[in-house]
């Protein structure tokens, strides 16, 4: 058969219709993808003549010119060309097989189809369809057809199948089949062209642009997007005719059709499953009504977005009406292409979706027969699945509705897909049985089994507990073990009898002031034994304590006192707090000897308040949470059962009393006979102090906020805290990386993740971290007598895996917000799943159940922000940042540093010692996965996140991206080092010597890290207090006594870069200019106990003769370094001329019988290589001077120019006096001369060599030139930089890392 031109009269073929173009571009994105294969299998029941079938098929295909094309990309764009189709048996793409002799003919056929379906068509060659006919039984046949979606849609399939059956039946009856009912492809092309040239096109475009002008977020069930996959997952169910009938009845009752009921149901499901009232579904439309396309088997269908608002208050009837009207509005503009809407809205470039899940209703009549043999049709593939598509088939064959949930395997597992389908069908069933005029709130999306699971089974926590108080068990313990150590603070140890005795006297004193059950007493004491005594005393008197953290701003504390109106304020010294209304009880000097040391009488019940802790309110005004004894008693009884403490345990009290974690730290050990170890005030922020205390005090149990745990784990001594038996985390999300780091640093020590708001007595969930687990760390299961609810917007329970808001119920709930009944009523609401009259607390936290009953924390429900009208989930950006290599933590916020100037700023912390991530690279990386408006304008790399006094991330303290820094240059190497350390700690590119650490966003935690770094780098003992007194690099340098006076102090022959430490010292020899400050960047990367001494040229400070030979200079230096270290083994390093000097010194030391265990050279080359080069003059000397400071010389002509550059670039060398600068120039010239005259002898050993590997003019320089002068190996490392850049970050960091590793080997 020769094909007539397929509606494509010209030799150049026909253009594609807009519908085809969409498919063509989708295929062009992934040419080898079979995703655009569509396929159906028609099962024929009865007698069939395969030859006649083939004839009928061939004739039908011959009538269908839209099918018979191939599509080629031409310079004018893709065009379709008619394709010649051979008869059956002569090349017609038809496979026939009789499978009756196979064991399982259907399985064999299905396997063949599956294989075939995975085979992509070649658009350019065609044909774009393929058939098969399998005989699978005496009277059963399977007709398989696969067609590329670009030439046929679902309606077209039905047309083809009907015509094949018709022709077959006619042939079987010996009749002619009658004329072809089909229209031509040319009509489709013409109709499409006419539409696109007409008025309607513009009107339709305006309609869609208006409707989606705000570019709404489209929630999806997976909660994320993915690139199209080549395959899809499918879950199939059938809705029986009875359910279908009920749905039709319901549809009639709400004046809709059954597909509209299904669409409304899916909208409700998506809204609840995503927690979004706004839903956009995609509706595939056949697009043929009123069109010639009704008679053309081709590709016409379109997908249109349907925007719906689903609230719990609306009824199902109202929702369905919204669907009806929405579809009606869409249908009026249905010819406008889905692809064009996305393009118009600018969604294409951002790879944003226009719609969420698709609901594809295909009511295409398949009630056909082959000469009396009836058939049933089954879809095998309905085309590409971007996210999730619900295909609903009504074949009109009496078989009910078939429902396929097709999912993108990159987004859904088979299990998730099945769960979505099961719930959808269950919801449909319940909706069909319910009153359509009842609020949608009555419907949840969980199935009955899932409801039982999440409400009952996961919350099976009932446990009988005695009616006791927080303090009662402490008093009972004191009677049991009066002599056991109860409290240790520094050198002070108090036994249980001593501790309770002192607390009892104070309690009796408080009682005289009116403290009794129900009364509040403020306690404003720094962490100390007295603080513990004060808390015990308040409780013993029957009162509730209100902790006031002396580190908090006074205004805030005063506000709390005014709000809580305590009976009195307990404090250590007078004047700690401004005068407020209540009387102050000053413990310092208070004589309590008149009071008995036995427990005072009081009428305390478990319902009385035990403590009042203030938490920050979203409105900015702190609110006091009143926690009753029964609540905290339940919490502590659970904790003791879960993690039994014994008399041998020692619990570290380091959490500030204003943070409720401190409650268990204070009282749990005292209730159980263990020992409370009280940390120093402020100690909770100092990782080195904590590690030392944990070891020295044999602490077995302690708590960290996750961000502080990360800091602690970076402390070298953390690994030595092996006496720990359990560590608890809570307060913020515990990153898996932190848990993994913990398992590495402290293997064998259990790490427990706890979760709970202050409003529910510290913690309500628990999870034991296990090494080897991945994914987010769950917050875990509910504690005793506690129920967790993950609820949707209608307060219906979310099934496992579906995010919702976390609600808490049970005896651990707080009584109220103090004096805030309105606020209390909005956060503590009636528990719909508890006994009548019980309450639940609304956390504002987003969470979901795992399949096995643990809860995962997903963030805050209020983290969503809007920036310039765009809805942004900061968590999404944070997750993207955190996924970058070397990033250990990420935070994103919207800053408004200047009024009206809102912008996204990202903050990351980096893994050490990996090179810090480059902010620009991070932004590029984000831009690859996030829409432009979600890519932060700036990303700052921080050493640590700033923490609030309670140890939570303090967003308010994150630095603004452009800190204004001063421009005075450092005068000394100490200043330069300090300025660099400041900048590192603050995550800024540079810091001026007069810039205040705290002014630039420094926090006390950052300060702790900075102090540690300074200690490591300069070897000087420094406290945080010193930093507070001297917060600038210049002031701190002065304070350290290292930088007083002029720079001259740092110009001696011996420069103690880090004078102290127990390792073998490293001597670094100066480069050409004679100054060794350039090596200070090494310090931060070498072991803190590694001393480093510089050797510098003579003549920098005083007039003295310059050495006459390199040998003489080296001998001088050898003598100098022997003053520091009389005998070997020696460690030497030098850059440039310094490397040549190091070699010479090493040879001299060896000749003197000493051992040299390290000789490291940074881009230094032996004399031989320089001998023939001209001796440099002043101009070369100036070049060398710039190089010492790390710059290439460009247009500096004079000494003044050079000084200007040094000052501008903030080099410490800028502080040199005129005299010294002159000396430097002389020294450079002299050194160049000496080096050319020198003759090397052989160094016996290996050399660690660093080559500046970037291309350079002196391409003849090679480390191989050292071979004659080194007996051992030359271990060369290439550093990707030029010679002058070698002592600059990040190149020096790389060198330092290699060097540190080598030094560590040498240290053994």
């Amino acid at each position: 058969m020769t094909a007539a031109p397929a509606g494509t009269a010209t030799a150049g073929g026909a253009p594609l219709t807009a519908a085809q173009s969409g498919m063509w571009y989708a295929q062009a994105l992934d040419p080898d993808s079979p995703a655009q294969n569509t396929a159906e299998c028609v099962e024929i029941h009865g007698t069939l003549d395969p030859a006649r079938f083939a004839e009928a098929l061939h004739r039908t295909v011959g009538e269908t010119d839209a099918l018979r094309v191939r599509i080629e990309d031409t310079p004018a764009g893709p065009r379709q060309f008619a394709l010649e189709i051979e008869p059956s048996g002569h090349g017609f793409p038809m496979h026939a097989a009789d499978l009756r002799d196979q064991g399982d003919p259907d399985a064999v056929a299905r396997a063949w189809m599956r294989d075939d379906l995975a085979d992509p068509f070649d658009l350019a060659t065609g044909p774009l369809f393929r058939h098969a006919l399998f005989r699978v039984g005496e009277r059963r046949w399977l007709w398989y057809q696969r067609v590329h979606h670009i030439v046929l849609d679902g309606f077209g399939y039905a047309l083809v199948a009907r015509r094949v059956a018709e022709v077959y039946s006619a042939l079987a009856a010996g009749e002619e089949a009658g004329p072809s009912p089909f229209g031509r492809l040319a009509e489709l092309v013409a109709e499409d062209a006419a539409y696109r040239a007409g008025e309607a096109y513009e009107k339709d475009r305006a309609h869609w642009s208006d409707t989606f002008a705000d570019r709404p977020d489209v929630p999806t069930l997976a909660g994320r997007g993915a690139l199209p996959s080549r395959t899809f997952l499918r879950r199939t169910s059938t809705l029986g005719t009875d359910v279908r009938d009920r749905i039709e009845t319901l549809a009639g009752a709400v004046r809709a059709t059954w597909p509209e009921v299904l669409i409304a149901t899916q909208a409700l499901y998506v809204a609840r499953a995503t927690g979004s009232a706004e839903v956009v579904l995609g509706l595939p439309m056949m697009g043929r009504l009123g069109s010639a396309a009704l008679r053309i088997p081709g590709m016409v269908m379109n997908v249109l977005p349907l925007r719906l608002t689903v609230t719990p208050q609306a009824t199902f009837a109202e929702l369905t009406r919204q669907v009806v009207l929405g579809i009606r509005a869409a249908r009026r503009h249905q010819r406008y292409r889905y692809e064009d809407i996305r393009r118009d809205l600018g969604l294409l470039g951002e790879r944003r979706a226009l719609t969420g899940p698709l609901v594809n209703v295909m009511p295409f009549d398949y009630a056909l027969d082959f000469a009396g043999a009836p058939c049933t049709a089954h879809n095998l593939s309905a085309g590409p699945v971007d996210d999730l598509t619900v295909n609903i088939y009504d074949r009109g064959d009496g078989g009910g509705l078939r429902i396929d949930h097709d999912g993108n395997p990159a987004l859904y597992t088979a299990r998730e897909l099945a769960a979505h389908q099961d719930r959808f069908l269950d919801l449909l069933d319940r909706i069909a049985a319910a009153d359509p005029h009842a609020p949608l709130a009555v419907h949840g999306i969980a199935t009955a089994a899932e409801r039982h699971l999440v409400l009952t089974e996961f919350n099976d926590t009932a446990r009988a507990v005695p009616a006791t108080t927080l303090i009662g068990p402490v008093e009972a313990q004191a009677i049991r073990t009066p002599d056991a150590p109860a409290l240790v603070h520094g050198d002070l140890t108090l036994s249980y009898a001593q501790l309770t005795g002192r607390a009892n006297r104070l309690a009796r004193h408080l009682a005289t002031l009116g403290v009794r059950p129900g009364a509040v007493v403020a306690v404003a004491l720094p962490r100390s034994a007295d603080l513990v005594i004060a808390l015990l005393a308040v409780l013993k008197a029957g009162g509730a304590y209100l902790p006031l953290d002396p580190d908090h701003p006074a205004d805030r504390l005063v506000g709390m006192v005014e709000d809580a109106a305590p009976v009195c304020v307990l404090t250590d010294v007078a004047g700690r707090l401004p005068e407020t209304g209540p009387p102050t009880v000053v413990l310092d000097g208070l004589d309590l000897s008149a009071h008995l040391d036995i427990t005072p009488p009081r009428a305390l019940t478990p319902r009385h308040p035990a403590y009042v802790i203030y938490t920050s309110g979203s409105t900015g005004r702190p609110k006091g949470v009143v926690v009753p004894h029964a609540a905290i008693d339940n919490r502590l009884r659970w904790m003791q059962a879960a993690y039994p403490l014994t008399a041998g345990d020692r619990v570290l009290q380091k959490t500030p009393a204003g943070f409720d974690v401190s409650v268990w730290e204070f009282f749990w050990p005292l209730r159980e006979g263990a020992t409370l170890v009280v940390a120093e005030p402020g100690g909770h922020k100092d990782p080195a102090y904590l590690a030392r205390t944990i070891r020295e005090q044999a602490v077995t149990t302690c708590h960290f906020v996750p961000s502080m745990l990360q800091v602690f784990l970076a402390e070298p001594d953390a690994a030595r805290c092996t006496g720990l038996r359990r560590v608890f985390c809570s307060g913020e999300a515990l990153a898996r990386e932190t848990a993994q780091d913990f398992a590495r640093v402290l293997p064998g020590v259990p790490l427990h993740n706890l979760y709970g708001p202050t409003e529910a007595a510290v913690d309500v969930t628990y999870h034991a971290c296990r090494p080897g687990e991945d994914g987010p760390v769950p917050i875990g299961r509910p504690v005793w007598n506690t129920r967790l609810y993950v609820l949707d917007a209608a307060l219906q329970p979310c099934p496992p895996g579906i995010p919702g808001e976390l609600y808490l119920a049970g005896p651990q709930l707080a009584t109220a917000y103090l004096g805030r009944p309105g606020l209390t009523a909005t956060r503590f609401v009636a528990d719909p799943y508890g006994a009548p009259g019980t309450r639940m607390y609304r956390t504002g936290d987003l969470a979901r159940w795992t399949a096995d009953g643990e809860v995962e924390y997903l963030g805050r429900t209020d983290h969503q922000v809007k920036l310039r009208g765009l809805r942004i989930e900061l968590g999404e950006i944070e997750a993207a940042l955190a996924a970058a290599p070397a990033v250990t933590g990420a935070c994103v916020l919207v800053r408004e540093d200047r009024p009206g100037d809102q912008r996204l700023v990202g903050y990351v912390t980096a893994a050490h010692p990996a090179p810090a991530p480059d902010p620009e690279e991070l932004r590029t990386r984000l831009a690859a996965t996030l829409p432009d408006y979600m890519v932060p304008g700036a990303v700052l790399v921080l050493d640590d996140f700033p923490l609030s006094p309670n140890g939570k991330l303090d967003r308010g303290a994150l630095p603004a991206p452009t800190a204004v820094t001063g421009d005075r240059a450092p005068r000394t190497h100490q200043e330069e080092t300090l300025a660099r350390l400041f900048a590192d700690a603050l995550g800024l590119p540079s810091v001026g010597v007069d810039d205040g650490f705290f002014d630039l966003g420094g926090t006390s935690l950052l300060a702790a890290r900075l102090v540690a770094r300074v200690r490591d780098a300069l070897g000087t003992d420094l406290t945080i207090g010193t930093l507070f007194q001297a917060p600038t690099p210049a002031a701190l340098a002065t304070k350290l006594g290292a930088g007083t006076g002029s720079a001259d102090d740092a110009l001696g022959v011996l420069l103690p870069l880090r004078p102290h430490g127990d390792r073998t010292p490293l001597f670094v020899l100066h480069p050409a200019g004679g100054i060794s400050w350039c090596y200070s960047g090494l310090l931060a990367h070498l072991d803190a106990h590694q001393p480093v001494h510089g050797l510098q040229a003579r003549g920098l400070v005083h007039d003295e003769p310059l050495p006459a030979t390199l040998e003489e200079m080296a001998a001088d230096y050898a003598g100098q370094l022997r003053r520091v270290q009389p005998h070997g083994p020696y460690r030497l390093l030098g850059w440039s001329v310094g490397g040549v000097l190091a070699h010479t010194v090493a040879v001299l030391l060896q000749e003197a019988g000493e051992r040299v265990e390290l000789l490291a050279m940074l881009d230094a080359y032996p004399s031989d290589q320089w001998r023939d080069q001209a001796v440099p003059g002043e101009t070369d000397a100036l070049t060398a001077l710039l190089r010492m400071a790390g710059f290439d010389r460009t247009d500096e002509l004079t000494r003044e120019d050079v000084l200007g550059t040094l000052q501008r670039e903030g080099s410490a060398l800028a502080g040199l006096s005129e005299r010294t600068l002159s000396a430097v120039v002389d020294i450079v010239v002299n050194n160049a001369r000496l080096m050319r005259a020198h003759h090397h002898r052989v160094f016996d050993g290996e050399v660690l060599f660093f080559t500046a590997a970037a291309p350079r003019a002196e391409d003849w320089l090679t480390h191989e030139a050292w071979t004659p002068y080194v007996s051992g190996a030359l271990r060369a490392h290439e550093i990707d930089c030029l010679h002058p850049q070698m002592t600059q970050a990040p190149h020096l960091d790389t060198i330092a890392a290699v060097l540190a590793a080598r030094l560590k080997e040498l240290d053994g």
Partner: protein
Amino acid sequence: MALTLQQIRADVAETLGEDPADIPDDENLVDYGLDSIRIMSLIGRWRRDHGIETTFVDLAERPAIDAWAALLGVAP
């Protein structure tokens, strides 16, 4: 009972959930919410109530009341 123009309009209006008076005879019913499901329900109804045999494609090709009246041989 023979199908009349008024009956066509009444049936169409009912399936669209609209008032018959709001459905003009010569307008494209797609703009009023007509879809394939509703066409098929009309085919079923007219077959059942009036013994009229017509096909989906016939009705869908020109979706307007006057066009249908002509197609189904109903007097205007």
